[in-house]
């Protein structure tokens, strides 16, 4: 049977996407796009609300998820929206919402004729991402993934006039396609070994099998294909170029939404499908290597950066590494840590990118030295940069700190103390470049003291980011509980 709740959010997104396109056709081209924006925002908000009905309770998104009588599912269980999926969906949808906001400011700065298309494609890719989180089966997973990525190719290269954007798009596309080819090849062998594409079935069947080189190859290729999406080193090479070239809102979107989706895929595929004695040591070890590599490379390469978007790209590589430590630790604790950190990461990163796009709209530059004296031009942005960046660096009392506390805690609980040590040492390195930005923003007097204006919406969103980032630092309890119930839903 089919329960609509299982894909209600996706319905909302796709629906509003089409609506946007249609309305754009009806409207006369000169008209302001406010209506479209309205529709999009409402659509995403509706999708967010629909999470509640999926959760089966009216009150809070996740309130009674633990005590839900039946997990809504559709297409013969190919889509199953359990609490884990809900958590991921929430992050993705929030990210989409933020992206929309950012993009409004961004397009004020460099206008385009294709606002409607942009919004629609964004919503499509969001739908893909959100479907991905509840995919229980490889084909579904693959289709959702491609929906996400192909539309993000478009988004990345959306600024047709801008050479950088085009280059970014092309690189992203070629490499993305290449990596998904690898992924598929891995899938094909996986199918070959098990004869099924249902993840839980795969797990059952592989449980009895012994490891074989081909199977290992398959696993490695799958890891490679997905690691590309969350930009784990050494599959991260595309990230800086694409992040720098793509329009700022898309950079934000990629750094949060598509990462989250990638992790969702990882969690399902590996902790349900491939957590079998024959394979687990292999891919956990593999992840340990990748995580450490990303932490080291990401942080070190971020040091010499001058362009803030590029810097954030490297930082996001490092962050992926941190999250992977929690992922490879696995189990209730590890996954909780991953989910919580993603939640934290959402607000911190989005805050930074919103600030970036606001500054860019004013100064037309992404160079760090142009952030000089931000405290005077707009105190709020100064605070946002300080708080969010330090949260990314994992400095108390900001959310990133408690996030890292759980991630490394999970890693250590499984005996990966050395990874935790590397992680901590390099988060000190990261502190160096994050503080470089904060320093520019807070210490010197501005060259051009003209204030940076923003509308009430952006103001409030920035404030929300700050408030969340600070509060979650010393009072993570509620979100942690949600994350726990979400993580536990994977195992029962």
């Amino acid at each position, binding site marked *: 049977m089919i329960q609509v709740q299982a894909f209600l959010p996706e319905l909302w997104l796709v629906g509003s996407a089409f609506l946007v396109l249609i309305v754009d056709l009806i409207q006369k081209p000169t008209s302001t796009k406010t209506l479209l924006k309205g529709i999009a925002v409402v659509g995403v908000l509706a999708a967010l609300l629909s999470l509640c009905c999926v959760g089966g309770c009216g009150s809070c998104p996740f309130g009674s998820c633990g005590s839900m009588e039946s997990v809504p599912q559709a297409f013969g269980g190919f889509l199953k929206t359990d609490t884990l999926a809900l958590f991921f969906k929430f992050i993705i949808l929030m990210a989409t919402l933020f992206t929309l906001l950012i993009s409004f400011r961004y397009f004020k700065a460099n206008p385009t004729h294709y606002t409607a298309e942009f919004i629609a494609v964004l919503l499509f890719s969001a739908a893909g991402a959100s479907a991905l989180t509840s995919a229980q089966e490889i084909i579904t997973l693959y289709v959702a993934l491609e929906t996400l990525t192909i539309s993000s190719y478009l988004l990345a290269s959306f600024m047709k006039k801008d050479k950088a954007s085009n280059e970014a798009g092309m690189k992203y596309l070629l490499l993305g396609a290449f990596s998904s080819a690898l992924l598929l090849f891995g899938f094909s062998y996986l199918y070959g070994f098990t004869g099924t594409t249902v993840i839980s079935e795969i797990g059952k069947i592989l449980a009895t099998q012994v490891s074989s080189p081909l199977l290992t190859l398959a696993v490695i290729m799958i890891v490679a294909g997905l690691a590309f999406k969350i930009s784990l080193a050494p599959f991260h090479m595309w990230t800086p170029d694409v992040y720098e070239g793509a329009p700022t809102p898309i950079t934000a979107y990629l750094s949060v939404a598509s990462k989250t989706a990638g992790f969702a895929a990882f969690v399902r595929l590996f902790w349900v499908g491939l957590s079998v004695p024959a394979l687990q040591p292999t891919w956990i070890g593999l992840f340990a290597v990748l995580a450490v590599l990303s932490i080291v490379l990401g942080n070190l390469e971020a040091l010499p950066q001058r362009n803030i978007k590029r810097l954030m790209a490297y930082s996001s590589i490092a962050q992926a590494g941190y999250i992977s430590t929690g992922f490879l630790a696995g189990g209730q604790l590890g996954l909780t840590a991953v989910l919580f950190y993603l939640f934290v990461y959402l607000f911190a990163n989005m805050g930074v990118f919103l600030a970036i796009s606001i500054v860019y709209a004013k100064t037309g530059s992404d160079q760090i030295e142009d952030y000089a004296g931000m405290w005077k031009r707009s105190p709020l942005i100064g605070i946002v940069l300080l708080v969010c960046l330090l949260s990314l660096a994992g400095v*108390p009392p900001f959310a990133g*700190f408690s996030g890292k506390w759980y991630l490394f805690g999970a890693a*250590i609980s499984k005996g990966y103390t050395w990874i935790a040590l590397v992680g901590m040492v390099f988060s000190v390195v990261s502190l160096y470049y994050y503080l470089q930005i904060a320093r520019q923003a807070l210490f010197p007097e501005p060259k051009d003291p003209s204030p940076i204006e923003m509308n009430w919406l952006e103001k409030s969103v920035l404030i929300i980011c700050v408030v969340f980032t600070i509060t979650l630092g010393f009072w993570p309890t509620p979100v942690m509980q949600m994350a726990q119930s979400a993580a536990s839903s994977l195992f029962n």
Partner: protein
Amino acid sequence: MFPVLATILLPFAVSFALFHSVVQGPNILPVLSTLIVAPIIAAFLVMIAPEKYARWISLATASFALGLGVKLFLNYQMGISGFQFVEEIPWLKNLGISYILGVDGMSTLMVLLVTCVYFAGALISWNISLRRKEYFVLFSLLVGGVAGAYESLDLFFFFLFYEFAVLPMYLLVGIWGTGRKEYAAMKLTVYLLAGSAFMLVGFLAIYFTSNIHTFDIRALSDLSATGLSVSFQNTWFPLLFVGFGVISALFPFHTWSPDGYGSAPTAASMLHAGVLKSLGGYSIIRVALPLMPDGAKHWLPYLAILALINMLYAAIVALKQTDFKYVIAYSSVSHCGTILFGICTLEAAGLNGAVIQTFSHGIVAAMTFALVGTVYGKAHTRELSKLGGLTACMPVLGALFVAAAMANVGLPGLSGFVGEFLVFLGSYQSGFHGGFTIFQALFPMGVLAIVLTAIYYLRLVQMVFFGPVKDPHLKEEVKDGSFIEILPIAFLLIVSLMVGLYPKPFVDMSNLSIAPLIDNIGGFK
């Protein structure tokens, strides 16, 4: 002058009146939380209030906090050892984290120290003009963090507050500093956080290795319950020691301290040298020793050498400094060496000495930095070659500086002596147990430090305050300290005198937490 006095006395009285009822058992008012929250609230008030009220608000809060600190000291029941005024709120049950505050003798002293320095700092920053609002916001936040670090009994919150204090320091140094301030600020921050990286991993390792999954220090202090293996302790004790040591400027991780203090604004260096730096030694006694006694026994004799190097090395380097403030900074490093050395002795006397020395160093270093700041504010230079004969134009400050120097030198009657004497006693005693230990060799060299300290401090006094006035127009322009400038320094001097003249209450206080600890560990015997 009178409004200032009013702003000081009223909140002081209020806090006394408010907490007159704070006693053991179910205490009505969460005094410890108030100590943390009050500065943070003050920060918010400063944020919203108009700029001209900023300093008044922070001064009022400071004296309120001072009242609390004194009250705490008075109301602490000497009869019962162990933690008092405990507040406990479960935070994340299944992760063993809960919000626990509590003080024993040692931390009561530390809280008193914090409040004293906070008060003095608020007065010293009276004439800050640049970005005053932000300054006082950060200043108050800093204090809140430090107070929390000294009070919290849960490793998670301990760490949280600990680093919470580091961040405002970064901004204070970076924005209101002098000289290579941005470099210094960055260095200081990166250093301290690098040190804390080991702490965090160590804490987590302890949590997951121990049989009882909790971050509650009280529970973890029971080795039989935690069952941490000797090998584990031997691995992690040095790492934690170094992690904590970094913030106490342990050689060779001390170089943040001269640069940091050299360029920090006065109140910031007061708080940092006086309070934040003391956190290192404090946390070793509070966390590292009780949690990993076997590791301590194994490593301390070697770490003692590092501590000794701190004492002597910093003292010798201080001899040739040309910058007024750098001498003080190195002397502070040297004194921290004394503290660490006292800890390394693992003896009742030594540890008590370390605690008293921590308190004393806090007060004295704060006083000295306050003086340097005030003098610098008047003479506009810290070059020893340019200064000289300042007593002629600022007799009171000169006299106070001589007093401060003597306190640093460890002259009896001032707080410095008590701590150092106990440390030496402890180190020799530690040398006594189990035949020859390294301490018998180290002890005389430790004593050598008091001579070196005397040399460079008297050199300082001579070059700055004695002799003929090098710069003639200093004589006309520069006037002696005003009431508001003298007040905090005199206040700190009085505290130092109180400890120096009648140390019994303070030593008893610290011994309340040291004696049981030593009983558990049992020295090197």
